[in-house]
């Protein structure tokens, strides 16, 4: 199992995340889907790093960066989502539509 195996897993993960983001209505689940997509990208980055550029650390550093950003994003995003669930008593994003046209 070489690079392609990792890439297949990564693509599957990204597809699941994208599909989940577009198909689900629950805001917390949508956040989780975003995390899935980020981690799919992370997986592909470290895989490329290991196979395409051995001895290099660029891919790994990028992965670390994305993990940090993802952590921050999750914190803020979850905080917002929890706050909005508390005020609305619902997690359905379709209900959050006060600013629509």
């Amino acid at each position: 199992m070489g690079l392609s195996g990792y890439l297949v897993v990564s693509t599957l993960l990204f597809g699941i995340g994208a599909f989940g983001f577009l198909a689900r209505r629950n805001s917390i689940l949508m956040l989780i889907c975003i995390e899935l997509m980020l981690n799919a990208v992370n997986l592909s980055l470290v895989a490329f790093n290991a196979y395409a550029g051995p001895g290099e650390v660029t891919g790994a550093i990028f992965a670390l960066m994305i993990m940090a950003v993802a952590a921050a994003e999750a914190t803020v995003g979850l905080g917002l989502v929890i706050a909005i669930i508390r005020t609305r008593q619902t997690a359905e994003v379709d209900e959050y539509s006060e600013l629509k046209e």
Partner: protein
Amino acid sequence: MSTELLIALIPALPIAGFLFAVLLGPRLDRVPTHHDGHDTHDSDDAHGTDEAHAAHAAHDDVDDSAFRGIPTEEEQAATSPHAGHHDDLANAAGADGVIPAELNDGIGQTGHVTPGGPQPVYRSWFVPVLLVAASWVASMIVFANVVFGGETYHVTLYEWIGSGDFHVEIAFLVDGLTAMLLLVVSSVGLLVHVYSIGYMNGDRGFWRFFAYLNLFMFSMLLLILGDNFLMLYVGWEAVGLCSYLLIGFWYKKPSAAGAAKKAFVVNRIGDFGFGLGIMAIWTALGTLQFEEVFETIGTLDPTLITVIALLLFAGAVGKSAQFPLHVWLPDAMEGPTPVSALIHAATMVNAGVYMVARANPIFAESPVAMWVVASIGVFTAIFAAAIALTQNDIKKVLAYSTVSQLAYMFFALGIGAWVAAIFHLVAHGFFKGLLFMASGSVIHGAGGEQDMRFMGGLRDRMRWTYWTMVIGSLALAGIPIFAGFFSKDEILAEAFNRGYYLFYVIGVVVAFMTAFYTFRMIFMTFWGEWRGPAEAWHHVHESARTMVAPLVILAVPTVLVGLFLGIPPEGGLIHTWLEEVFHHAEELHAGVLPGSILDEALAHGEHHGFELFGIGGLLLLVGATAGALGIWLAYRWYVLNPDAPRRFVERIPLGLGPGMYAASVNKYYVDDVYQLVFARGGVYLSNLLWWFDAKVIDGAVNGAGWLASRSGGILRHTQTGRVQNYGLGIATGMVLVLVAYLVIR
């Protein structure tokens, strides 16, 4: 005390007087305030002070209601938004005709100030007049040192502007030319100050008047003393400001305020050219200092020299009221008469002549510019004289006469007769200052009347004014031994000798016209019967001593200047004094036409001198005869046979007479044309620009807002409120980017 220090003191003293008058003047003067003066007199109880009460009581004894109507409150309100406010500076009680009729509240005009009533107490004049007198003493010492000692002074006080290559110093240059101007400016200035003490009596703006006069003296002295074009320009603009302030001295009077604005705006047109000329000099030569400029001007391209000379001359045309910018000077007569005498006859209007004479090395290099100067001079001379023939306002006659005489000087400058021009400037400064002050005395004595049709017979009541004015008029008319004879005939003789025969003939005609309108003025004013209201005749009186004394003093140079400076003609003392200043231009033979008498004399290396029993004497005779004929005609028409002018007008062939008369009375419609073209045209242009602004500029701004609003309106439909739609948008966009990337690669 060294002469250098004296030179620095000459302008410094008047500015000190200005500061004094501004800072302390209002506290020193006490003018009886006239409460609710436009009211009827039965409300005496309402007056706060006993003094005011007494003023009213004294006034009631003399009914001058026919002499000058008391304007109603409505009339006052109609003339000015400020009218009727008793705290106003320009409307004092008891002004004796000094305050224009439509402004005066009609009370206390029987004497200088209401007889028996409260007298105004003036103390603010003392220091300003004293300082101007000190400045005059300094000027005379410097004058004597320069013309008799033959010295030229350069006094550098300090560097004013030093910025890169641009250096301008506060420095004074006193040579023969400046000395001649100093003589006129300081002497007439001092006499006008003395005269104003009497003339402005009763005016509540007394201190303000002296402050402006002192500021004017400072500016004018700076103008003539300055050693570079920038100082000349600063003085030039400052005298323009003072002119504006003093024309509009009675600022409640709408015509005075309008005349002040007109003078300022018309001058600005000329000054714009002058400013450009100075900038051109600096760009071309890198210096503004007179001597450095004049030394190097010859190295420039002739076209550039012509451009510079014509730009400088544009300033002179504005300041010295030459056609087509002459329109402001007659209107400037709205100011108090001492102002007309000082600024608009003897000094400021000479600034243009001085500047062209000072810049003679520039003009001498450019024959085109010389021709322009001479042509404008000759045209303005006859044009203004033709207007003066029919004017009825005594000051308007003198104003057009001033325009005409200044034009004579430009005519002389343009043909290269530099010394003759300055000679005429000096003589004219004295006799025109005298004539204006005498006319002020007439107006004062006749109770504020300026229209000569309502004067007459004044010589019995105003002997001093009459005789001094006759002396001034004889000088203006060019009658032998008086100053104007020598200076005018020198200009005419130079025109003849240099080959300008057409200009010479026009000049003689102008001399004839000048003599005619001058003595028309004398005969209408002083001879015959009083034609004004009968009541007014009882008030006619000789003016105060402070007013008559300057007239008498000025009559002395009016008689002597010509004899002293002008003999022998074309080679008098003034030629020796000014030889150095015009040395360069004379060597170039600027303005000498080929084939002329002077040209041939120079070609044979001879000195062309005056011959009494030759062409020179003949020219003198022609000039004097023209003047005498003018006086004789005026005598015939306005004393012997008052019907003659009307019959003459009727006898002009083709029935053109009445039209010509109307054209002259209406100043050849120049004002009306300007009104139509520039004033009305300006309104149309402004409306056009306003339309452009409202439609195009504002349209573009509003259009940008409209565009943003409309495009936002379309885009907002994408804002569905469904997060999935947004997510789909992001995903689609990303896919598109990827596809595009793959395709392009």
